[in-house]
């Protein structure tokens, strides 16, 4: 890992520690410091991606690179959202997730062995579009999942009448539900396009190279898409929201995470 990457990881890690310290009550007022460090981490990470691009490593040229881009997007989306909403609790989940993703991406064997990712022109425009859309979709769904987790914790505390814990987390249930729904609404069309472009790409590769095998991750991806489609239709049609919506969001994201894990294991390890 480059020095720039390490610095980004360091800033993210301290920010994650501050957010965690804030919600467990160890350190009051750590949220602002956490947000400042997260901003530093996002800026360094952006610079890191830029430098790698300059040296010929495109952020969509491999699964680890795409994971690093997804980590950057999660961090940036959380940072921007936290400027408007009080999302301390979400920070305690989102920022550690960013740290984990970037570490996985940068310490993956392909990365540590110094192997060169696939040159982008070889992936083709369709492949590039698929990877970029899938990365965006995963990042947005990951953020929705973070909000769903916070919703479930918040719901439990409110049911148990534990106001202190609720106040420490700070985001009203309805706001969390609305934000998570917005994320799913944005992520779903992006993910749909990713699946469509991916299907066409795979079909073309099959015709060109005779690699038409139906892999498990394709099925999981379709299953994930169905889960999010059900969530959106149920919300609009039957008014599904709150706990049920939170669980379904988590289920959908679980599928997304499985797809990413399958790609990661297949291509990076």
């Amino acid at each position, binding site marked *: 890992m480059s020095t720039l990457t390490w610095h980004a990881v360091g800033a993210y890690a301290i920010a994650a520690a501050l957010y965690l310290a804030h919600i467990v009550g160890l350190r*009051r*007022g750590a949220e602002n410091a956490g947000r400042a460090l997260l901003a530093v981490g996002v800026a360094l990470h952006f610079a890191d991606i830029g430098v790698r691009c300059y040296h010929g490593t495109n952020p969509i040229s491999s699964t680890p690179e795409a994971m690093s881009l997804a980590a950057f997007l999660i961090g940036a989306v959380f940072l921007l959202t936290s400027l408007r909403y009080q999302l301390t609790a979400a920070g305690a989940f989102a920022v550690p997730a960013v740290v984990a993703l970037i570490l996985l991406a940068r310490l993956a064997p392909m990365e540590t062995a110094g192997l060169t990712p696939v040159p982008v022109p070889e992936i083709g425009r369709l492949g590039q579009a698929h990877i970029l859309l899938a990365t965006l979709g995963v990042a947005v769904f990951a953020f929705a999942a973070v909000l769903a987790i916070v919703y479930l914790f*918040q719901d439990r505390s*409110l*049911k148990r*009448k534990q*106001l*202190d814990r*609720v*106040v420490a987390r700070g985001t*009203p*249930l*309805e*706001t969390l*539900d609305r934000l998570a729904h917005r994320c799913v609404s944005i992520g779903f069309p992006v993910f749909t396009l990713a699946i469509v472009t991916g299907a066409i790409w795979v079909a073309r590769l099959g015709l060109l190279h005779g690699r038409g095998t139906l892999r498990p991750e394709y099925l999981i991806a379709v299953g994930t898409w169905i889960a999010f489609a059900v969530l959106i239709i149920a919300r609009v049609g*039957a*008014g*599904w*929201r*709150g*706990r*049920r*919506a939170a669980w379904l969001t988590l289920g959908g994201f679980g599928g997304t995470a499985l797809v990413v894990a399958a790609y990661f294991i297949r291509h990076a390890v």
Partner: protein
Amino acid sequence: MGGANIDLLLVGVSHKTAPVAVRERLAVEPDAIPAALAELTGLAAVREAAMISTCNRVELYVAADDADRAAAGLGEVLARRAGVAVADLAEHLYQHRDAGAVRHLFRVASSLDSLVVGEPQILGQTKQAYDAAVQNGTAGSVLRTCFEEGAFRVARRVRRETAIARNPVSVSSVAVEFARQVVGDFAKKRVLIVGAGKMSELAARTLRTHGATLTVINRTRARAEEMAPRFGAEVADWNDLPGALTAADIVIASTGAQRPVLSLDLIKQVRKQRRGRPLCLIDIGVPRDVEPEAGKVADIYLYDIDALQAQASEHRAEREEEAAEAEAVVEEELARFVKRWRSRQLGPMVSALQAHFHGIARAEVQRVSGGVDEKERKARLDMAESLIKKLLHFPMTAMREADPDEVLSMVQAVQRLFSLSPMAAVAEPEQAPAGNKKATGS
């Protein structure tokens, strides 16, 4: 920390020393403040004056040349106001001077001396008191330093660094906070008040101030119609209770009925209609108005009076714990304040002493430098000034590091030994507000 030579004097009464019967007679209405301040600065020994008058305290903060004389005068003013003899009021009065008065002001502004520790209003009231003194020309450099550079800064730090004001401590504010955590901002939310009793009205007023839209529903419609206009609420018919519950985001129930009016079956039925929207039920009725099992239904959040009171008590205990931390902040800031104050006292005297010696040096160099060239004259002047700097180094250091109790006597001794101007040595460098003769230290 006594002996810091801060000529601040405080005389007052508070909820800790005087019953409401005394406090209400001493309280000053906002439009009577200018006259009251003028009366205070009209006293012989008083240069500056500010007055904090709330339902829990009446405190007079003055900068005084003669603290004993000023304290006697302030006691007479208060006794006259209360319509009692000075001796009768004396048992309720407290007074603090010097750093003790500053400490008290810091504690008051930080809400450590309040009836409900950590309540937020007192800082605003302290600011209003100081603003009134500034506007009426009765605040000078002493009050400005103590309030602006001291009390307000300490209060902000206490709020920032301790959890003294973090959690609500009254039942109504706990209820509001629970509701806020469920439904978020109240601005576009609908609140249904079930029952038209006194408790309902109190809760409704609280939520109204937060911008919620209110609807009142009561078995006797006439009572709801009587109550609703007082805070701009709509009235719903009792027969439409399920519909009103479906439309509401927050329900405050306090009917006085002997059996729950919001049954589990009704809540389940309403929940289906709400299509997953969360509903916050605040049950402040005794006996309870909401069947307790309703709280177990998904998306329904029920808080009864016991839950609210338990939470409020817990928060009060937390505030007491946080108060110890806040007291430490006050002491730390007080020590810093006193140090700054002393260095300000010493500043003019140090300057005067240095100017005195350097003036002598320049005069003597000038006297013995007739006929020498400019370079030689400058060399002699540099040597003389260096000599003076070294000679003054130890006395200056000793004064800066002196015990607070010794500072004034040292300043006076230096003034006398070197015939320095007393005003130049002790006056504050900054000027009091224009147009305030009393506050200029004259």
